[in-house]
C-alpha cells in the first residue's frame, strides 16, 4: 500500500506540471474548481487554452493516436489533478471531449473520426450531448424525439432538454426514436447533428440559480444524412450506454462545494466554536476525506489497467448531498443574517450560496440520487431491477 506514482507516472506528472507552470498561473484559492458546466462567457479564452493543450498533447489524452495523444487513463487522471491547481478555463469542453467524442470514435466511421476528432480536440468545434427529454430523464429510453427515414437522410422532430452548452456548441450527439413499433430500448438510433442546421432551435433554460448553462433544443424536421449515424439503426441504446460509461472516467472531478475546512473557517470567522460545530465539521470532513480516498481507489484500479465500475456511483451520492447540508449549516451560523444573499454578506460567502443552489442541481444531474441508488442496488449488489411493465411492449402501444 502506498500513495506514490510509479516511475512512469511520476515522469508524466512532472512533465505535465512543468508545462502548466510555463503556460498558466497557479491557483491560490485551494478548493475544487467547480462544476463541468459553463455558461459560455469565457469561450474565447477557453478556445485559446484548448488549442494550446492540444498542441502539447494534453487534449484527449486517452484518445487513440493519431487523433489524440494515445495515453493511458491514469495519465488523464494525473493531468486533471495537476490542471486543477491552475487558473485555466474549465467547463466548455468537458462534456464534448469526455462523452461525445469518445462515442464518435467508438461508433463512428473513419470518415467521422478524420472529420471531427482533431477539430474537437483543438477546441475549434464544440460538442454537446442531446439525450434527456421532457418525457425521459431518469427513464431515458422513454424519449420521443422521432427520426423518419427520407431517402439518404433522416428527418428529426422533437425536443431535448438540459443540454449543457447547446447555445455555443457546433455539433452534438443525438439520441432519436427511429422505430416506434419496437419496444422502448430497441427502436433508438444515435446521430451526429450539426447544431447550426436549419430547424435546430436552442432556447436557454433559466435555472433557479438565475443562470443559463442549460438549454432546451427543438428539432423541426432537421435533415440528418444517414452517413452521420453512429452505430446501427436501432442500436442507439447500446451506443448511449457506452457514452454514459465514459462519464465514469471523469472520476474525482469534484463540484467545489463548501468543504469541512470552509465550514470550520467560516465558523471561526463568526466566532463560533461549540460541540455542535465540532460534530458537524468532523462529519463533513469524514465525507470529504472519503471522496479523496475513493478517488485514490479508482486511480489504483486505473493504474493497474482496470476500469472503475458502477461502485463509482457512491462518489456523487455523497458529494452532492453533503454540499447541500454543509451550506445549510453555514447559513445557520449567521442566524437571521443567513437569509441574506452573498451579494449582501460579502465575497467570502459566495461559495456557500453557490453550494446551496447547485447542490440541488447536482443531486439530479448525471444520475439522480435515486438512480445512483438503483445503480448500486442493481449493478453492485445484484438486486432485481424495478418492475418495468413497459419494457417489452412496442413503444407506440404504450400509454403516454
Amino acid at each position: 500500500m502506498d500513495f506514490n506514482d510509479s516511475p512512469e507516472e511520476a515522469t508524466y506528472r512532472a512533465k505535465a506540471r512543468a508545462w502548466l507552470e510555463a503556460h498558466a498561473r497557479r491557483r491560490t484559492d485551494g478548493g475544487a474548481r467547480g462544476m463541468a458546466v459553463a455558461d459560455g462567457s469565457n469561450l474565447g479564452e477557453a478556445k485559446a487554452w484548448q488549442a494550446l493543450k492540444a498542441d502539447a498533447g494534453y487534449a484527449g489524452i486517452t484518445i487513440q493516436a493519431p487523433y489524440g495523444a494515445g495515453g493511458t487513463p491514469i495519465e488523464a487522471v494525473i493531468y486533471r489533478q495537476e490542471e486543477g491547481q491552475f487558473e485555466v478555463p474549465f467547463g466548455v469542453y468537458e462534456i464534448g471531449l469526455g462523452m461525445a467524442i469518445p462515442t464518435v470514435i467508438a461508433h463512428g466511421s473513419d470518415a467521422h473520426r478524420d472529420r471531427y476528432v482533431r477539430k474537437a480536440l483543438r477546441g475549434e468545434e464544440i460538442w454537446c450531448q442531446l439525450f434527456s427529454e421532457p418525457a425521459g430523464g431518469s427513464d431515458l429510453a422513454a424519449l420521443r424525439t422521432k427520426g423518419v427515414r427520407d431517402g439518404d437522410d433522416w428527418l428529426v422532430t422533437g425536443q431535448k432538454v438540459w443540454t449543457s452548452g447547446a447555445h455555443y456548441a457546433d455539433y452534438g450527439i443525438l439520441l432519436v426514436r427511429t422505430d416506434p413499433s419496437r419496444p422502448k430500448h430497441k427502436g433508438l438510433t444515435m446521430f451526429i447533428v450539426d447544431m447550426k442546421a436549419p430547424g435546430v432551435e436552442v432556447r436557454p433554460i433559466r435555472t433557479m440559480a438565475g443562470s443559463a448553462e442549460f438549454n432546451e433544443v427543438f428539432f423541426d424536421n432537421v435533415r440528418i444524412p444517414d452517413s452521420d449515424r453512429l452505430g446501427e439503426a436501432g442500436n442507439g441504446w447500446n451506443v448511449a450506454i457506452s457514452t454514459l460509461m465514459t462519464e465514469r472516467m471523469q472520476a474525482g472531478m469534484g463540484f467545489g462545494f463548501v468543504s469541512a475546512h470552509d465550514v470550520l473557517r467560516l465558523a471561526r470567522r463568526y466566532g463560533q466554536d461549540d460541540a455542535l460545530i465540532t460534530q458537524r465539521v468532523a462529519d463533513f470532513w469524514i465525507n470529504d476525506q472519503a471522496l479523496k480516498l475513493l478517488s485514490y481507489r479508482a486511480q489504483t484500479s486505473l493504474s493497474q489497467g482496470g476500469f472503475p465500475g458502477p461502485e463509482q456511483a457512491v462518489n456523487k451520492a455523497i458529494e452532492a448531498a453533503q454540499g447541500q447540508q454543509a451550506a445549510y449549516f453555514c447559513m445557520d451560523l449567521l442566524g437571521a443574517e443567513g437569509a441574506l444573499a452573498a451579494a449582501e454578506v460579502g465575497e467570502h460567502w459566495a461559495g456557500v450560496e453557490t453550494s446551496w443552489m447547485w447542490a440541488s442541481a447536482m443531486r439530479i444531474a448525471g444520475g439522480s440520487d435515486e438512480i445512483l441508488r438503483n445503480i448500486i442496488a442493481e449493478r453492485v449488489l445484484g438486486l432485481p431491477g424495478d418492475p418495468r411493465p413497459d419494457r417489452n411492449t412496442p413503444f407506440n402501444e404504450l400509454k403516454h
Partner: protein
Amino acid sequence: MNFDFSDEQKMFADQVRRSLADTCTMKEVRTVLESSTGLSRATWKALAELGVLGAAVPEERGGAGLGALELCAAAYEIGYALAPVPFVASTGVCAEALRRYGNDSQQEKWLPLLAEGSAIGTHALSSGGSTLRMEGGRISGRARLVPYGVQADLALMQADSAGGTVLILVPLNGAGVTRKSLMTLDPTRPLADLTFEGVAAEILPTGNEDAVATLVDGAAILLAFEQVGAAQRALEMAREYALQRTAFGFPIGTYQAIKHKLADMFIKIETARVHAYWGAWALSVDAPDLPLAAAGAHLSASDALRFAAQENVQTHGGIGFTWESDCQFFYRRAQADSLAFGPSQRWRERIVGALSAQAA
C-alpha cells in the same frame, strides 16, 4: 498509487476467511452469546494456528514478523465472521505495546504466549475511571470496564507513581486481583471491573509520551476493520433476505424502499472501508496523520456498522427482532464496538483539532 492490499496480504486474509467459515459459524457466535464464556476458545485457537495472533510479532519472539497491514487484513475477516475473540485487546493493544515498547525480558516472556494464543492480553487504556497507584513495584486500585477482564491473563494499564503516570504490565492470574464480570449489551464483548491489592507489576519503558495515544489509534484502526467486515456481512445478510422474501408479488429487493436502504448501507460501508484502508497505511508507516486517520476510521466504521446492523433488522421485518434471528448479533456488536474507545465526540474533537492545526 497502490491504495490496496498486496496479493500476499489478500491471500492471507482469504485463509483467515476460510478457516473462520468453518470454526466461527453463526451457531458458534450464538453459543458464546448465550453462555457466559465471553469468547470462543475454538476460534481463538484457529486464529493462533493460522499465525494471525502473531502476525506482527517478530520471528524471534514466536511470530511471523509481518506488520500492521496483515493485522488489518485479518481483522476484517474476524469482523466478517463476527468472531467473539479478544483480537483487538490482546493482539492489537497488548502484543503491540510489548512489541513497540517492551524490554527484552518482557518481550521474551509474553510475546510467544500471546502469539500462540495461550495467553490473552487486555488493556484499560480506553475506559477512563481507573484509579491505579503504583508503589515499590506493586499496584493497588481499580480498573473499570476492562475488555475481556475476566478471561485475560495479562493487562496493560496506566498507573500513577512517584515518577508520574506509567504504563504497566500486570499478570492477572496471581493473588490480589479481584475480577467482577459485568453484564454487557453484547455478551460477545465482555467487560469486567478489576480490583488490585498490592499486585506485582512491571513498567513498560515507552520513553514516549504519545505511547498510549499511538496504541489506542492502532487499536481503533484494527477495530474499524472488524466493524467494516461485520457491516459487510450485515449487508450481505440483508441482501440475501431481500432476494428471498416476497411481498406484494415480488421479492422485496425489487422495491426501491429496500434497494435504496441497501444502497445506503453500501455507501456508508465504502466510506468506512476507504478510511480504514487509509488508517492501515498510516499505521504501517507510523504516519504523522495517524491520529487523524484513526479518528476517521473509528467514526466512519462505527457509523457504518450501526447503520448496517439497524437496517438489517429493518429489512428482515418482525423476524429480525426475534431471539432466533442472527440480526441481533450485529445490532449488539455495533453498539459495543462504537464505544470501545470512548465517546465519539472526543474523536471528533481530534479531527477538528487537526483541521485547525492545518489551517493555522
